[in-house]
Structures are given as C-alpha cells and as structure tokens.
C-alpha cells in the first residue's frame, strides 16, 4: 500500500479539480484533443528536466512509496503521471475561472486569430 503514496497524492489532486467539469461546466475533458495537444509538450519538456535532475542527483524518490515502474533515465512512472495530472488540474482551474468570469479576455477567441 505504501507504494501507492505518490499516486494517492495525484488522486487527491484529481479529486480536487474534476468536479469543476460538472459544477462549473468547464468542458475541458470533452475537448480532449486540445487537452492532449496542450499536455504532450509539457510532459516531454518536464520529463527531460526530470532525467537531468535525477542524473545530477538534484532530487530522488523514496523507493518504498512510488509504484516501482521506471522509464528511461530512471524517472519513476509516478512522475509522468504528475506531469499529466498537474496540467489537467491547471487547465480545469483556468476554465473554471472563465466560467465565472466570462468577460475576461483569454486570447483564444476567433478574433484573436492572426491571419
């Protein structure tokens, strides 16, 4: 059970934000293609940072409290899940603010398109 400690915190993050999809009608998960396109570059960049940091010994993990599955560069799978969960939570929060404040400009409307 201790091995689930890291992912349990990620579950806490998701529990803290997924309700916004329903209560504030954020419609983020419904726009999953746009969501995936936004998350993927972040996953790649932060995974590379993680590889560097782990190699340099900047940080390390309690091996008893992570899943125990590793990606190339000795990066725990838990970390990749983190790089997916945090952008989802951020985008849900962002769209939740928009839901409450629909007149605040965001920059993704049709008139923002640069020809």
């Amino acid at each position, binding site marked *: 059970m201790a091995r689930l400690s890291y992912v349990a915190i990620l579950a806490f993050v998701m529990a803290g934000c997924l309700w916004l999809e329903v209560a504030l009608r954020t419609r983020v998960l419904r726009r999953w293609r746009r969501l995936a396109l936004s998350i993927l570059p972040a996953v790649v960049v932060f995974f590379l940072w993680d590889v560097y940091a782990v190699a340099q010994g900047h940080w390390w993990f309690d091996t008893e409290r992570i899943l125990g599955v590793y990606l190339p560069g000795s990066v725990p799978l838990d970390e990749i899940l983190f790089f997916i969960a945090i952008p989802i939570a951020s*985008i849900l929060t962002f769209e939740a603010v928009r839901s409450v404040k629909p007149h605040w400009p965001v920059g993704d409307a049709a008139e923002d398109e640069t020809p």
Partner: protein
Amino acid sequence: MTYTGVAVVAVLLMVVVDMWVVRTRLLGRRVFWTAYAIIAFFQLVTNGMFTGFGIVRYDGEAILGSTSPSEGAPPFLGDGRIAFAPAEDLLFGFALVLLSLSLWVFWGRRGVERTPMSGPPVWRRGP
C-alpha cells in the same frame, strides 16, 4: 547547473514562449493570475505532502536550503523551504502551469476545439 539555476531558466523560457513564441500573453491577463493564485495554493498543499512525507527528497548542493533529512520532515518554513518544499518548486510549478495554459490557449486560438466554451456554472442560468 543546480536545481535553482534550472528552475530560473525554465521560468524565463516559459515566459518567452508565452509572450513571444506562441504570443498568448497570459502574463498580462487577469484570468491567468486568478487561476494561478488558486493553483499555487493547492500546489503548496500537495507539494507539502510530497516533501513533508519525504516521498521526494532534495540535495542541499542543488537547492538554496539543505539536503532533505533521511528521517522525518524538513522545516515547514525557512532554510529555503516553503511548506516543506524547496522554494525552487514554486518556480518549477509556475513553469509547468504557464506552459500548459499557454499551449491550451494557443490551440484554442488556432481553432482546435475552441468550443464547447466553458460555463456557465450550474448555479447560474444559461444556454
């Protein structure tokens, strides 16, 4: 480079991406700072769990503060730490959040699933 150095570079890089590469200019928008204020609060809570329980530990050579203790929690505040986590983590989080939100707005502007729009909240009447 230390974690401190990489974190500062990462924030500067994502600022450049937002302001001049994809030109979403989120840094000049209320909607971004309001969302970030909420996200930062929850980051302190969750990061406090990762670091306070010692699931993630840091080398004192790479951060402003000292190495995470092998037993027990690091200081809650002080010695370069905020809510158990190294201050650098706030920069790390800011870079991750800014990049994700900037790309989200970028794809929307390009017309990728601009709709269905967000809102209104269930407690407000709407379409």
